[in-house]
C-alpha cells in the first residue's frame, strides 16, 4: 500500500513537470517544438563531420558513429541533469513552492528524482531523434547496427540512476546559492561533455585532465551504450566496464543519500528552503 502511495506521488511530480513544460501551448506545437530542438542540434554536429570529411577527403563512418552517438546520448544525461538542478531553483525562486513541497512530499531526494524523470524522458526522445537523423545525415549504414535492446534498456535505467544522483548532489549544493544554482548545473554539464567521451575518447584529452573522467560513470556508460547500440563498435574489457559502471552507480547512490541528508539538515538549520533573491 505504501508503495502505491509512493508511486502516486512520483507520478504526480512527473505530471507536474510535464504540465509545467508543455502547458504554454497546444500538444501538437509542443510535440513539434520538442522534436525540432534536437533535429537542429544534430544538424550542426553532422555537418561539422561532413565538412571535415569533405575538406580532408577522409570519410570514416566509425568516427561518424562515435560523434553522433556521443552527442545523442549526452542529451539524455544532460537534459535530465539540467532539469533536476533547475527544479530546486525554480521551486524556490520562481514558484516559491519549495517549502510546501518539502512539507508535502515525504522525501525531497525522491521528489527531485521524480521531477527530473520527465526531463530524462524528453532527453531520451532527443537522443533517439538525434541518433537516427545524425546517422542518416552522415551516411552511416543504420541497418548494420544490430542493437542489444535489453542491454540498451538496462543501460538507460542505470544512466538515469547515476546521473540523477549526480544531479541530486549538485542540486543539494545549489540550495546554498540562489543565484548560482543554474550556473553550477551548466558547469557540471560542461565537465561531463568535456571528459565523458562524448565527441572524442578520453585518450584524446591532455593527461592532467584524464583523471577527472574517472570521477564520473560517464565514460563507461557511453562506451557500453555505443556497444549495446552497435555490436560492430568494439570496446575492450567489457566486463570491467560493466563492473565499474555498476560500482560507480552504487557509490553515487550511497553518496547522494548521505550528502543530501547533510544538505537537508543544513538547509533547515539556515532556513534556506524559503530563501529567495526576490527576482
Amino acid at each position, binding site marked *: 500500500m505504501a508503495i502505491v*502511495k509512493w508511486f*502516486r*506521488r512520483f*507520478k*504526480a*511530480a512527473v*505530471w*507536474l513537470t510535464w*504540465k*509545467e513544460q508543455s*502547458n*504554454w501551448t497546444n500538444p501538437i506545437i509542443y510535440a513539434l517544438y520538442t522534436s525540432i530542438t534536437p533535429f537542429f542540434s544534430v544538424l550542426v554536429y553532422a555537418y561539422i563531420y561532413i565538412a571535415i570529411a569533405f575538406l580532408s577527403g577522409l570519410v570514416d563512418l566509425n568516427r561518424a558513429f562515435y560523434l553522433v552517438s556521443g552527442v545523442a546520448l549526452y542529451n539524455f544525461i544532460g537534459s535530465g541533469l539540467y532539469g533536476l538542478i533547475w527544479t530546486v531553483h525554480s521551486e524556490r525562486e520562481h*514558484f*516559491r*513552492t519549495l*517549502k*510546501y*513541497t*518539502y*512539507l*508535502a*512530499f*515525504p522525501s525531497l531526494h525522491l521528489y527531485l528524482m521524480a521531477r527530473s524523470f520527465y526531463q530524462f524522458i524528453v532527453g531520451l526522445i532527443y537522443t533517439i531523434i538525434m541518433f537516427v537523423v545524425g546517422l542518416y545525415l552522415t551516411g552511416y549504414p543504420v541497418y548494420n547496427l544490430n542493437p542489444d535492446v535489453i542491454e540498451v534498456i538496462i543501460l538507460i535505467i542505470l544512466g538515469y540512476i547515476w546521473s540523477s544522483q549526480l544531479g541530486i548532489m549538485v542540486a543539494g549544493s545549489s540550495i546554498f546559492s540562489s543565484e548560482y544554482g543554474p550556473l553550477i548545473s551548466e558547469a557540471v554539464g560542461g565537465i561531463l561533455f568535456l571528459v565523458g567521451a562524448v565527441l572524442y575518447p578520453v585518450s584524446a584529452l591532455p593527461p592532467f585532465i584524464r583523471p577527472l573522467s574517472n570521477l564520473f560513470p560517464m565514460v563507461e556508460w557511453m562506451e557500453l551504450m555505443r556497444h549495446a547500440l552497435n555490436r560492430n563498435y568494439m570496446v575492450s574489457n567489457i566486463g570491467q566496464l560493466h563492473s565499474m559502471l555498476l560500482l560507480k552507480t552504487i557509490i553515487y547512490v550511497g553518496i547522494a543519500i548521505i550528502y543530501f541528508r547533510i544538505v537537508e*539538515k543544513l538547509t*533547515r*538549520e539556515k*532556513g534556506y*528552503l*524559503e530563501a529567495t533573491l526576490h527576482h
Partner: protein
Amino acid sequence: MQPAIETVKLVRVFSSPQGEFRALDEVSISVPNGIIYGLLGPNGAGKTTLIRILATLLLPTSGDAYVGGFHVVKEASKVREIINLVSGGERPGYGILSVRENLMYYGQVYGLTWSETKRKIEELDSLLDLSDFLDKRLNRISTGMMQKYALARGLINDPEILFLDEPTLGLDVNNARVIRRIIKSLVEKGDIKTILLTSHYMAEVEELCDYISIIDRGRIIAHGTPDELRKMVEKEIIYDVDIRLRDVDRINFLKRLDSVIGHTVKTRQLTGEARIRIILSSEDIGRIIRRFEDEGVHVLRVTRSEASLEDVFLKLVGKGIGDEEG
C-alpha cells in the same frame, strides 16, 4: 490530554556578519487540541520563526518543540504528515497551471488518489467558494482568490493541525473578512482540530482566537483567553483623543507624564485627523487635555474607551503593536 502543540524553552538565534539576532528567546507555549490559538505580536517579534520551527522548516538553536506529540527535530517526517501551512502575503504555486491543477497536484503528492483528490476539491469548493476561479490559471487570479487557493491547498490533506501565518496579510477589508469567517468555521465544523494563527492585527486575533499569546522581541510576554488578557487592563483608564493631524508632532510630552502608561497614534489622512489612544494609571484626563492645549494642540474629541487587546500590548510593551516595523 496531550497538547496539540508544545514548546519548551525554545530558542532560535540567527547569525550574520552583523552579529547574532535572538529571534526566539525561551519560548514555552502549550496549545490544547480543538482551538484556534493566536500568536500576536508586531513584525519581527518571532511569530513566523516559531511557525517555521513547528512546521519543521527551520531547526531551533535549543529547546524542544512537539507537534501532535512528535518532536519537530527527531520526528520531523511524522510531524509533516499531520500538519499543513498557509502563509499570507505571498503567491506560491505553479502559475501556468490552473487552480484546480495545482490542487490536483498537491492532493496526489499527499498520497490521495485522483478520484479522492477530485472529491476533496469539490468539498473545498463548497467550503471556500472556489468555483469562479477554479479553472483559471494561478497567475491570473486576484490576491483574495490567491488566499482562498492557499487555504484550499492547506486543507487538501485534512491536517490535524493547521499553521496560519498572517493569513489576511495584504488583503482588502472584504476579503480579509471572508477569510476570517472561513477560518472560524473550520474549527467550529471540526474540519481542522487545531489552528495556530499568527497575526499583527489585533482585531483579527480577538475575533478568531480562543487563546492568545502575545510575543515581543522573541519572548512571550502574556498569554490567556481574550477576556483574561483584557482583564490585565481593567484597572487602567483608556481614552481616545482626536486631534488635528498636523499637531501630531507636539504630543511627545505624553511620554513624560507619570499617569500615562502608554499611548498609540493612528493617523487618518482622509479626514486630516489623528486618534491618540492613551492608557492612564489614574484618572488624569483633565490635566492631560490642558497640556494638549498648552502645547498648541487642538483637541477635537475626547472619548472614554473599553479595553482591547491593543491596550494590553500597549501596557506591557509601552507602545502600540503597529508602532514598530522589522
